[in-house]
């Protein structure tokens, strides 16, 4: 009786984990709002959405301001612009439908010994409403509201509101700005940082994914608010620095919007600094960027739902330091497009609070993530991409070894790696069909029987068909 109850509990936790992992804000980037505002076709700013061209990077760094719509205007008595609103709001919609199949079906969540349906249709896989464009004379926004079919709710997604201006007196132009956003690297303009990294950006919601990820690798997405300042010189040199603080969605409950306390999970202590430096060189039809970015977070560990310990927001914290490097190369020709993106993130963890509370086996851990991918398009219509991903790190039985089916790890190791291949057909600039296959060499610490209950890494190999339209 006790065994059955524990097994049920572990499956329930697995189900919660399933919903938790798959309910993350999805990344999406194609925004016809900007096409409506600028009057320019998608290809001006995107090689093929979501990847940005050098002009697209300039558009974003200048505050999403380039605007060729009639305006509602207001000026002060000293002839300063007091209001500048598009007569037509730059709204757009995004719709994705998908089919996902894993190499081996997932087990039924209740009836043991049988399998769930393999071959899941998500309709929508995701649907989003965007307001994207200028909101004031020097301010622009990228605001996304997303319907997530897993939770069945509409939620607040990637948001980047920014102020930008230029100092024309500086030779070759200096652009500076501030961004208020809810996801470290969402404000970045190269497709080699986590929020927008191609060709890894489109993943199904309906298949298992490796559990371990560094803090800067979308882990904080949607649960933080950050203010950063940046400068960009000569279309070439970029520097940014800012601070993030916890701002989770859906807190407060019946008691109303209260401050974060021991009932909240994963609260950042104080402010987490974020930095980003990049150097881009453009020549002929090529551009090459090398850069570095990082985040330093003091975190109160999330409460443990199975043991019901509420972690007070006091005393020692867990300290995560993420230091990352990235690079991007693009060739944008008349007929051929080719790009390569790569990033390497190294995370060091000093788990003072977690270790003391028994949430980790080790007082310190580390985690490293590496991704390298390339994409080719012919006439911006027929494309193919290939990517390699790898996460390795110190084994930590308590932290990673949940022992749950499918999503856990028997070895307590975070190591996962594999390949993604994708074929794309883009009949019109705002419509994309993708056929994607993900193959895992290693999943949550092992190639075979990684969860201790018989599932192999290759059982999670995923076939994913995606229809993606933005309008």
């Amino acid at each position: 009786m006790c065994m059955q109850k524990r097994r049920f509990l572990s499956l329930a936790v697995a189900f919660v984990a399933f919903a938790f992992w798959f309910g993350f804000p999805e990344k999406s980037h194609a925004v016809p709002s900007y096409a409506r505002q600028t009057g320019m076709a998608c290809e001006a700013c995107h090689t093929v959405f979501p990847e940005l061209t050098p002009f697209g990077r300039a558009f974003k760094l200048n505050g999403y301001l380039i605007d060729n719509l009639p305006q509602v205007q207001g000026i002060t008595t000293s002839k300063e612009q007091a209001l500048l609103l598009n007569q037509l709001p730059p709204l757009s919609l995004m719709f994705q439908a998908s089919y996902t199949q894993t190499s081996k079906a997932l087990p039924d969540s209740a009836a043991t010994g049988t399998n769930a349906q393999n071959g899941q249709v998500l309709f929508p896989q995701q649907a989003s409403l965007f307001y994207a464009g200028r909101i004031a004379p020097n301010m622009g926004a990228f605001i996304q509201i997303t319907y997530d079919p897993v939770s069945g709710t509409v939620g607040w997604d990637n948001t980047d509101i920014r102020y930008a201006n230029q100092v024309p007196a500086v030779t070759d132009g200096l652009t500076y700005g501030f961004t208020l956003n809810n996801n470290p690297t969402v404000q970045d303009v190269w497709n080699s940082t986590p929020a927008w990294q191609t060709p890894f950006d489109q993943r199904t919601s309906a298949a298992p994914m490796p559990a371990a990820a560094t803090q800067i690798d979308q882990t904080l997405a949607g649960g933080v608010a950050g203010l950063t300042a940046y400068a960009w010189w000569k279309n070439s040199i970029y520097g940014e620095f800012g601070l993030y603080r916890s701002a989770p969605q859906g807190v407060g409950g019946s008691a109303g919007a209260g401050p974060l306390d021991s009932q909240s999970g994963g609260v950042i202590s104080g402010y987490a600094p974020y930095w980003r430096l990049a150097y881009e060189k453009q020549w002929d039809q090529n551009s090459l960027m090398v850069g570095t970015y990082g985040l330093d977070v003091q975190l109160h560990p999330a409460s443990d739902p199975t043991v019901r310990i509420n972690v007070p927001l006091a005393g020692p914290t867990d300290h995560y330091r993420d230091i990352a490097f990235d690079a991007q190369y693009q060739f944008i020709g008349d007929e051929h497009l080719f790009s390569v993106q790569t990033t390497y993130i190294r995370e060091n963890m000093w788990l003072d609070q977690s270790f003391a509370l028994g949430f980790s086996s080790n007082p310190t851990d580390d985690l490293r993530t590496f991704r390298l991918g390339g994409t080719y398009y012919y006439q911006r219509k027929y494309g193919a991409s290939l990517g390699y991903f790898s996460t390795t790190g110190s084994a930590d039985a308590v932290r990673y070894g949940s022992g749950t089916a499918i999503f856990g790890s028997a070895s307590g190791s975070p190591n996962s790696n594999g390949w993604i291949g994708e074929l794309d057909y883009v009949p019109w600039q705002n419509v994309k069909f993708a056929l994607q296959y993900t193959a895992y060499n290693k999943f949550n610490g092992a190639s075979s029987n990684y969860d201790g209950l018989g599932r192999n890494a290759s059982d999670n190999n995923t076939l994913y068909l995606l229809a993606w339209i933005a309008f």
Partner: protein
Amino acid sequence: MKLNPTTPFALLLLFAAAPAFAQDEDAARLAIGVCAACHGPRGESVAPAFPRLAAQRAEYIESQLKSFRDRTRSDPMAQGYMWGMTSQLSDGTIAGLAEYYSKQKPVRNGQQGNPKLLQEGKTIYEQGIPATNVPACITCHGKDAEGSAVYPRLAGQHAPYLVKQIALFKSALRADPNAAVMHAISAGMSFEQAEAVAAYLASK
């Protein structure tokens, strides 16, 4: 104190000119802040997809910006980029932008191409192609390809851009009001000849 009789007139002139000064400043800000993203802060674009505008004829820039705004120039890059960029430009701003770019220092590529190709290009530029009734480019575009009145400067322009424009004139995909003459001329040019002239012009 006796007021100089010319003073009111001078003041009037100054006030009349003030909007023009403000407009020049606005145009420069626009050029450096917006157009620079593709064309470079002084019109010295790096990518051949985007033409160099530095030292371009003001009359030509003005006519092209108006053609983009009117949507009479309708080649693919025009539709994708320039229709949007120009839709809200006033005549005054267009004049200011034309003035700004025409005053910039020309870009000297110093490109060294295949000498045979450059020589062939020079010959076509200076003498035309009699066999197919192609007149000498020099007659409209100037001795040093610096342009004249509304005929654009070609010296120092990206070779791939020039070749593409010849192709667009030939297929009539580029159909702005001044394109009719180039449509007739390009009909008599082969792709190899266009490449030769473009290489020669890019090297100037």
